[in-house]
């Protein structure tokens, strides 16, 4: 099986790569369109600011490429937010894979939402029932509200989408690559998806 991490100016590529290596999963890190298209699994990481990152993706036509992928794709953190239709961060039009707007937390808690929070109402196939209530690691100031595509909920003053899924597109607001054994299980579930 060929797994590819999309190479761009995201801050957590190394961490995602380390996590796959720990799972014994060979992978490539590339921005080559052919290599990405021919992969069995594609991971779209992300740490950074929405508008500059979208501009970077557009410049390299990665925005069109990602939307057209038909194999299982996993967006992580900013990767997930960019898969939504718009981000309030920098008033940025995004990929629109999920028809959900990303907005800033306006809650009576510290921002960013940083640390370990629990996953509720988890849905197959990215999650199995053993993951219900388990803690995963988040760092973010913007969020996707609960929507029909929501695959897991977390609570931070309000309920928000900890994960999304639509067709072959999967996404987590949290960092599975930094979420200990639970994160590794979620990554393994993604890599083992039946297609």
């Amino acid at each position, binding site marked *: 099986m060929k797994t590819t991490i999309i190479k761009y100016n995201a801050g957590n590529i190394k961490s995602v790569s380390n996590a796959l290596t720990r799972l014994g999963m060979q992978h490539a890190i590339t921005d080559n369109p052919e290599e990405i298209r021919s992969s069995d699994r594609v991971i779209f990481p992300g740490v950074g600011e929405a508008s500059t990152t979208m501009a970077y993706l557009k410049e390299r036509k990665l925005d069109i490429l990602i939307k057209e992928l038909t194999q299982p794709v996993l967006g992580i953190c900013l990767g997930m937010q960019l898969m939504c239709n718009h981000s309030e961060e920098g008033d940025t039009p995004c990929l629109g894979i999920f028809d959900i707007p990303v907005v800033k937390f306006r809650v009576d808690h510290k921002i960013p939402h940083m*640390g*370990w929070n629990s996953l509720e109402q988890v849905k197959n196939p990215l999650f199995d029932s053993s993951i219900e209530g388990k803690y995963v*690691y988040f760092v973010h100031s913007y969020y996707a509200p609960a929507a029909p595509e929501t695959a897991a909920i977390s609570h931070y003053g309000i309920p928000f989408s900890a994960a999304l899924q639509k067709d072959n597109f999967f996404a987590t607001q949290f960092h599975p*690559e930094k979420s200990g054994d639970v994160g590794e299980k979620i990554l393994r579930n993604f890599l083992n998806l039946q297609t």
Partner: protein
Amino acid sequence: MNNLAKRIIPCLDIRDGRTVKGINFVDIRDAGDPVELAQRYSQQGADELVFLDITASHEKRKLLKELVEKVAATISIPFTVGGGVSELEDADVLLSAGADKISVNSAAILNPSLIDHLAQQFGSQFVVVAIDARLEENGTWQVYRNGGRIPVGLELFAWAREMQERGAGEILWTSMNHDGTQHGFANETLSELGKQLSIPLIASGGAGKPEHFADAFTVGNADAALAASVFHYDTIPIPVLKAYLAKQGINVRR
């Protein structure tokens, strides 16, 4: 509803590639191999790790990039690296090596705009500002640099607020009066400092018993609590600590 857990953070003070622990910043003892310790803590349920190169600052030595790479390859929880980060390039090297956050202490005092630049380039979530402060006889908390060696004429509360305004994503405050005593954290001051900040506050200095962590979260209202020797010497195993905190009704990851 808010399910964000309180974080338990073992701190590994690094000198010459080994973990060490001093009492009140002196009398330094060897406490093991950092990568082995990091792995053990991660398996025991630590929520995050902090590596501080305590030699880096006063000997002007850069942190061992290799160590950070080894840790990043081994453990699957977030970790912060500090000690001798004095310019953007230092931070970039640590980020590329796999650090999730960097901690800046003395360099922020010598050049406060470094924090603005780090936050702009890497994002606030990457920037932890560590502050060592001592309660002086005149009743004020004074900030020290270079591992608690040099008083700098700054007051804790004003300095923490300035660091937040410049873009720090978290404050890691060590009470030099409490550090190494194992008599509990500086809870009243923690609570007061937390009220003045809108970013997470990590309590450091004084952990000796599980009750001390509970107090730091309930009385001190800290977002996370950091300790070194109670974990290094297994005085308080992390699973025991978390079971205790959960029993007290404190939300911890288990």
